[in-house]
C-alpha cells in the first residue's frame, strides 16, 4: 500500500473518531443540562471544553451554552470542532477515493454536506441535542459500512489503527479530567457527573451489566480503563491498535516492524497488568499521561517505519 494512502486512511479514521467523540460529548452534555444547576452546568461544560480542546475558540463566560456548542461544533476556524474534523476526514477520504468503497464515501460525504449548512440557531430551541445524536448514529453507520464494504486488508487495518490510537487518547483525557488533579480540587464530580461520564463513553448500560447500577467512581475508572470487552475502554482500544499494528506493512523489514510492535507490546502489558486499586491512591493522572505519551510514541514510530521513511535508506 502506498505510504501516502496509509497516511490518509489513518488520519481519516482519527478525525472520524474525534468527530464521533465530539458529537457524543455535546449531545450528552446538552441532554443532561436540564438536570443540572447553573453552577454544576458550568463546571461540566468546562470539562467538555477541556476534553475537546476547545481552548481559545470558546467564550470564557462559560454560561452561554449556545455559544459554547456553536464553537465546539460549527466553528470552522476551530480545528477541533465537529465540522472541522468532518471536513478533514473528508479531505483525507477524497485523496484516497479509489481505496475506500463508494458506499463509505457517499455516507461520509452526505453527512458532511448535511452538516455544513446547519445553522445552530434554527435547531437550538427545539431539541438541541438531537442533531448531535443523529451525527453519532450516522458515524456508527459509516463504521458499519466500512466494516462490511471494504476489504479487511492493510488499508482497513490502518483505519483501525487510527481509530483506536485516537480513542485511547480521548478516553484517557476524559478520565484525567474526572479522576486527575482537576477533580481533586474544587470541582469534585457528583453522582450526575459520574452518570454523564459513562454516557460520554456510551458506557452506562455496559457498566450496569458488569457492576449493576451502583455508581462508584473507582468502578467507573476500572471499567473505562481496564475492561477487556467494552469498545470504549482504554484497554480495549490498546489491544485493537496492537493487533492492527501486527497486520500492517507485512512486507516491511523486520527491524522496522519491531520498533513499532515493541512500543505497542509494552503499552499493552501495562494495561493487561494494571490494578485500579493502586492507581486510585493518587497515581492515576501519571498513569493516564503515560498512556497518552506512549500512544504518541507509537504514532511516531509508525511514521518513521512505514510512512515518512527516507527512500535512500531502503535502496
Amino acid at each position: 500500500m502506498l505510504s501516502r494512502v496509509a497516511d490518509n486512511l489513518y488520519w481519516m479514521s482519527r478525525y472520524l473518531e474525534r468527530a464521533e467523540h465530539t458529537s457524543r460529548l455535546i449531545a450528552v452534555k446538552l441532554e443532561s443540562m436540564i438536570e443540572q444547576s447553573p453552577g454544576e452546568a458550568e463546571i461540566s461544560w468546562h470539562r467538555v471544553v477541556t476534553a475537546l480542546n476547545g481552548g481559545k475558540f470558546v467564550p470564557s463566560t462559560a454560561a452561554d451554552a449556545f455559544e459554547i456548542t456553536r464553537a465546539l461544533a460549527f466553528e470552522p476556524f476551530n480545528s477541533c470542532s465537529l465540522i472541522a474534523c468532518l471536513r478533514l476526514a473528508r479531505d483525507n477520504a477524497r485523496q484516497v477515493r479509489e481505496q475506500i468503497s463508494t458506499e463509505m464515501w457517499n455516507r461520509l460525504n452526505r453527512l458532511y454536506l448535511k452538516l455544513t449548512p446547519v445553522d445552530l440557531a434554527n435547531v437550538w430551541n427545539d431539541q438541541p441535542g438531537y442533531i448531535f445524536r443523529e451525527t453519532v448514529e450516522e458515524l456508527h453507520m459509516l463504521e458499519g459500512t466500512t466494516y462490511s464494504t471494504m476489504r479487511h486488508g492493510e488499508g482497513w487495518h490502518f483505519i483501525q489503527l487510527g481509530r483506536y490510537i485516537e480513542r485511547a487518547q480521548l478516553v484517557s483525557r476524559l478520565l484525567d479530567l474526572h479522576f486527575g488533579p482537576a477533580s481533586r480540587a474544587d470541582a469534585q464530580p457528583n453522582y450526575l457527573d459520574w452518570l454523564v461520564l459513562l454516557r460520554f463513553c456510551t458506557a452506562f448500560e455496559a457498566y450496569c451489566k458488569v457492576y449493576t447500577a451502583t455508581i462508584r467512581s473507582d468502578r467507573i475508572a476500572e471499567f473505562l480503563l481496564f475492561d477487556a470487552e467494552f469498545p470504549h475502554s482504554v484497554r480495549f482500544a490498546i489491544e485493537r491498535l496492537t493487533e492492527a499494528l501486527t497486520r500492517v506493512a507485512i512486507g516491511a523489514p523486520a527491524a522496522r516492524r519491531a520498533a513499532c510492535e515493541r512500543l505497542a507490546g509494552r503499552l499493552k502489558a501495562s494495561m493487561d497488568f494494571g490494578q485500579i486499586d493502586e492507581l486510585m491512591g493518587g497515581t492515576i493522572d501519571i498513569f493516564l499521561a503515560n498512556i497518552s505519551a506512549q500512544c504518541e510514541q507509537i504514532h511516531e514510530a509508525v511514521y518513521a517505519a512505514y510512512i515518512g521513511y527516507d527512500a535512500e535508506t531502503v535502496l
Partner: protein
Amino acid sequence: MSRPPLSCHTSHMQQTLFAIAGGLTQPANAGPYANYALGQAYDEMFTPEGVVRPYYEELHQRVGELPTDELRRRQQACEQSFLHQGITFTVYGENQSTERIIPTDLLPRIITAAEWARMEAGLKQRIQALNLFLLDIYAEGRVLKDGLVPRALIYGSKHYRREMRGLPVPHGAYVNVCGTDLIRREDGTFVVLEDNLRVPSGVSYMLANRDVVRRAFPALFRTAGVRPIEHYPQDLLATLKSLAPFQDDVSIAVLSPGVFNSAYFEHAFLARQMGVELVEGRDLVVNDNAVYARTTSGLKKVDVIYRRIDDDFIDPLAFRSDSTLGVPGIFNAYRAGNVVIANAPGTGVADDKAVYAYVPRLIRYYLSEEPILDSVETFLCREPKSLSHVLANLDKLVVKAVGESGGYGMLIGPHASKSERDAFAQKLKVEPENYIAQPTIQLSTAPCFVDGVIEPRHVDLRPFVLTGERTTIAPGALTRVALKRGSLVVNSSQGGGSKDTWVLSA
C-alpha cells in the same frame, strides 16, 4: 477540460434563433416542448419541419407524458447523485471555497448505429494517421522531407519534444488516450473540431451520466437498445497493459496532480475502476533509471504510468524545473525503457491548430485513404492563396493564432468592427504563418430540460479513442452542452453541462 471555448467558432445563432413553435401543428409538440424553438442549426430531436426523428420518438413521447414536477424530481435526483458521489469541481472564493457539480441534463442524446459506425471508422482512421505522423516526425521526418508539412511548423512548435527523437514507443502508439471533439453541421454530418492528444478528460462524466440517466429512465433504456459503455475502464486497463514490455504482473498506476486538480475525481475514479494505484508525483521515486512507488512495505516498481499531468510538469529535470507535481528523473527512466508513460510525451505537437488543417492530407499520405470524417475547412494563412482569401473575407471568418488556446489572439470576423478587422489584417500580412482561419460554424442543438421546460441547447461530442496494441472505442461519448440559451460555450467553467449519449445497437 482545457481547450478553447467553442465560442471561437462563433455563429449568427444569437440573431437567427427564431420561434417556429406557433407553426408546429404536430400534437407531439405540446406539453414540455411547447416553447421548443428550432433555429438554423441541426436539431438532434426534430427535423427542420418540426417532426420528431424516428429514433427519438420513444424518448420524446415518454418525456411528454411526464408531468413537469416529475421531470424536475428526476433531474434533481441526477444532480443529488453527482453531489453525493463527489463529482464536483471546486470554485475558490475569498473566504471559503464551494463545490459545484457540472450540471448533467436529464435527456439523453441519441446517435444511430449507422452514424456511429461511420464515426468509429473515421476516428480509427484518424488516430492511426496521427500516430504514424508522430512516429514519422520523431524519427526520419519523411513527411517533412516530402514537403507535405512545413518543417518550421513542427520544429518551431512549443509542443515538439526534441527529447523524444529516435525513441521507440510500444506499438508505435504515441496517443493512447485521445478525446476527439466533433460537432454536427447543419446538414447533419459530423466534423472533427479538435483532436485532444495530450491528457484529455471527461470520460468519467460519460460513465457517470450513463449511471444516473439509466436510473432516471429505466424502462426506456431497456427498450431502446443502447450499447453498453461500462467496459471502458477494462479497455483502458488492457490498453495500458499492452504497452508493457512483459505481460505478467504489470504494475500500472494513474499519475494525478492531486486533489486540487479539477479532474481529480476522474483520476481517482479511473484508478478505482481499473483496480490500479492512484499516485501523485510525491509518491514516486526514481532510482537507477527505474520508477518506484513508496509503500508501507518499502519501494515497489512501477511499469506503466497513465499520467494525467502535462508534459511540461512531468519531470522537473527534463522539462519545467519549477514543477512540483512531477517526478525528478522519470523521463530518463522512460528513455531507458524501464517505464512506459501514456500518453507519450510530445503528442501535443499533433493537436496544434495549424497541424489540424493538415490532418486530411496526412490521412491520404500515410494511409492512401480518403478521410472518412471531415474536418472544419481551415485556411492556412501561410499559403498565399489562402491568405488572400482570408483577407478578402475577414468579415465572415474566425481567425486564430496558431499555438494559442483559450481564445487568445483571435478575431471573430462577424462580430468585429471595421477598424478591428483592418488592424488584424495588418498582423496577418506581417506574420501569415502564425494564423489560420475557419468559417463560422453552427453547433447542433439537442433538447435540454432547463428551468422546467424543454429547450434546444448547443452540443458537441467527445468520444474517447484508446490505442495500444489495437484501437478500441467505447460506443458512447461525452456530449457537452452550452446550458445558456444561444450560447456556444460548452466548457464546464463557463456554464457548460453534459448529457448522457446513447449509441443505438440497431
